[in-house]
């Protein structure tokens, strides 16, 4: 009994701690307007709002189009390399948005390698002589973000189509509908909730992005927070901007929940029926191949090749003692952060399993909201939170590694919790009951039954969170101690110093670890 109580109390205290930064940020929305804030309102706030909305809609349109079309084609048809595309289409997930934006800038900006090559082919000297869209613009930001974020829509739509559509498609065929009519009248309507869910995830990532918009010079909420903080030195106004952005994000979450609740369709059959894929031949086969190749090429092969090229040109200059120090710092930060998160998430999920009451679930849901809050906003919240602790206890935790790791907990606990939830769902409750009826103590049960059965989920959670921490940019930039760099921050700083080639070296390390994460995801997909 004492054991259960301890677990419950720990979960409650942890939830309060993890939710504190977000609560402090939300409270800021009610604080009175300062002069700086009035200045922001009069000058750049409308631009922040407009640009953030523009990016949202642009990314929503592109990711839903690319993600759903590729999901539909690879689920319904078999064509050349279709099995390979099944997994290749998630490869862009391996590249963080800010890294792809560096690669694209290097290739497609005014003096980019591809731009110069095309100008050479056309016999022109500079871009003023031809129609040219500068990649370093808001539209460019939308394109590069979409190329990396479309797998959200692809994965959710594909899972949904595989699980739900077989019998419905068969029914529409027996009623004489052709493929196009089935697509228009059946597939699109039933897939809408999945498309919207995937798109909202992609949009939330886009709104939270700092690296792309900062490098491409697009003023948004996130860059606004940084400018207000560093440029104007106003933590309060940065917090207020953050609170506005958080409201924005929570509105998106509510929208997703609302549409999900009312429009989620489930096939009436209990048994899962696999989809019989239609084989494509001739032109249709080529068209399907090309349609799936474009996002893989633009989202992974092209930027990865460009990064690899720069890496080969510059690694000798970059790989020095300093780099090794940064690598070790990054890895130790990743290991300690993900280890702590993996342990904490276990406490939350195991608490739900043992108690099973609503309160435990609410606590976990509250903690999971952290993942939807942009990194920069979490950072502002954590700094505000720690400033109170610093004052209260007369210590200096803000600006320390503790603050950084705490912020990672706020942001990434959800990933680990999701992993454990999936893992625990496969361990029947009767195992716990069996232990109880055999008078096996709670500690013995944990050691002999639960840990051996949940260890794979724990390991997967550790690796995924580790990679997320390695990739994280804005949160680490704001909270890191003085002179403490990570690979992501180092790469961003090199880009800021116009050392694009050199930036590819830390970036390649991040991408390679990202590929590991994608391989794990692919393995899970095969298993499921």
């Amino acid at each position, binding site marked *: *009994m004492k054991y259960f109580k301890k677990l419950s109390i720990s979960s409650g205290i942890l939830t309060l701690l993890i939710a504190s930064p977000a609560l402090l940020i939300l409270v800021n929305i009610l604080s009175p307007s300062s002069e700086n804030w009035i200045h922001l309102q009069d000058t750049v706030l409308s631009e922040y709002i407009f640009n953030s909305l523009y990016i949202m809609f642009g990314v929503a349109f592109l990711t839903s189009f690319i993600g759903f079309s590729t999901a539909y084609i690879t689920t319904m048809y078999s064509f050349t390399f279709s099995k390979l595309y099944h997994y290749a289409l998630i490869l862009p997930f391996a590249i963080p948005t800010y890294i792809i934006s560096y690669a694209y800038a290097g290739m497609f900006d005014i003096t980019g390698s591809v731009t110069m090559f095309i100008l050479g082919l056309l016999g022109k000297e500079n871009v003023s002589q031809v129609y040219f869209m500068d990649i370093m613009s808001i539209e460019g930001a939308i394109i590069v973000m979409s190329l990396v974020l479309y797998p959200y829509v692809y994965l959710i739509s594909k899972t949904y189509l595989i699980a739900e559509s077989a019998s419905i498609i068969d029914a529409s065929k027996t009623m004489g509908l052709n493929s196009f009519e089935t697509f228009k009248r059946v597939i699109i309507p039933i897939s809408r909730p999945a498309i919207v869910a995937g798109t909202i995830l992609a949009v939330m990532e886009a709104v939270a992005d700092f690296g792309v918009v900062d490098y491409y010079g697009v003023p948004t909420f996130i860059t606004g927070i940084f400018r207000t903080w560093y440029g104007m030195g106003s933590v309060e106004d940065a917090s207020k901007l953050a609170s506005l952005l958080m409201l924005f994000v929570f509105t998106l979450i509510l929208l997703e929940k609302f549409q999900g609740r009312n429009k989620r369709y489930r096939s009436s059959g209990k048994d899962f029926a696999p989809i019989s894929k239609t084989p494509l031949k001739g032109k249709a086969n080529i068209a399907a191949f090309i349609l799936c190749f474009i996002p893989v090429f633009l989202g992974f092969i092209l930027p990865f090749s460009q990064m690899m090229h720069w890496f080969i040109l510059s690694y000798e200059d970059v790989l020095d003692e300093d780099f090794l120090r940064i690598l070790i710092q990054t890895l130790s930060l990743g290991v300690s952060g993900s280890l702590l998160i993996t342990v904490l998430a276990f406490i939350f999920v195991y608490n739900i399993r043992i108690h099973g009451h609503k309160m435990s679930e609410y606590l976990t849901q509250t903690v999971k909201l952290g993942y939807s809050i942009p990194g920069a906003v979490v950072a502002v919240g954590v700094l505000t939170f720690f400033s109170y602790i610093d004052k209260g206890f007369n210590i200096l935790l803000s600006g320390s590694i503790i603050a950084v790791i705490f912020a990672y907990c706020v942001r990434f606990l959800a990933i680990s919790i999701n992993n454990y939830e999936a893992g625990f769902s496969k361990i*029947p409750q*009767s*195992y716990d*009951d*069996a232990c*109880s*009826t*055999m*008078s*096996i103590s709670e500690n013995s049960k944990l050691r*002999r*039954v639960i840990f*051996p*059965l949940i260890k794979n989920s724990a390991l997967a959670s550790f690796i995924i969170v580790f990679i997320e921490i390695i990739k994280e940019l804005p949160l680490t930039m704001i909270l890191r101690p003085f002179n403490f760099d990570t690979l992501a921050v180092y790469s961003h700083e090199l880009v800021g110093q116009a050392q694009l080639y050199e930036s590819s070296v830390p970036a390649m390390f991040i991408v390679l670890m990202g590929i590991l994460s994608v391989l794990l995801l692919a393995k899970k997909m095969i298993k499921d």
Partner: protein
Amino acid sequence: MVGISLKNFSIAFEDTKILENVSFDVEDGEIVTILGASGSGKSTILRSISSLEKKYKGDIFLHTCYLKKNDNSCATQNIGYIFQDYALFPHLNVLENISFALKDLNKKEKETQADKLLELFDLKEHKYKQIHELSGGQQQRVSIARVIAYKPKVLLLDEPFSNLDSLLRHKTKIWLKNVIKEFGFSAILVTHDKKEALSISDKIGILQNKTLVQFGTPKELFENPVNKYVANFLGEINELPKEVLKSFNLKNKNNDDVIIRVNKTALSEIKNEHKLRLLDISYCGDYYELSLEFTQHNGYVIAVLVEDLKAYKKDLEVYLDIKKEDLILIKS
């Protein structure tokens, strides 16, 4: 000696009452089956006896030991619970599963004890196999061996045959009955399968409307059901018009319903006052099921089983052929 005793047992989940005032005793070496529809609270009784549910009212005794809600000492290692899904640990092999709950023994002693059970339960050749390598029947035997290993006094079985196919189910039923008798356990089995209940049990309890409506030997329940629900639960019945009683000079003081077992219902071509019209004929493999309605009593449709179709065809008029002693007067 009484092995398990429930006195005025009641339980509710939040505001929903599940069971009220359930009382029954299970003697040593006796198999009692609790029968009831899905959601009637059968498994809740087992879970409460094994202290998995604690929010009940009333008393539970294991032998002379009073089961306290906040103290597991009485239940500790006295209860063997066989779960519907067997709850065998997939990361452990057969031997490790069987010796899982053995305490205060060294590794060698645990293995020796497990070996005896492996031999007894015909599982010796599967000793080092993983659980997924076993058939459903073998898994069930492992789950029973696992609880018998720590020598409980009471065995609780939650739908033990539901995951077995019909051939294996019959074989396992006989085997399990022998095991329970041989070890002298007090056993409670819950099921919704009347055949299982009738063939394996010393006593049966039937749950209806949140309470135990009848408790007794299978014969008592079958022959003297307290109400139509019990009668129907233990075998197919036909409800007859009350006028049938007149032809047998029987009185119906309490205005009870009149029923008869389907297997006691026959047809005759000899005219009597109970004329029937044949509505439908269903082929059921070993026999045919005829559906007939009383021509003079609207709404009474009965079933009659025949091996030979003879000249039966739709709309044929035939007559009811029953014996007085087979009629049962019963509360609605």
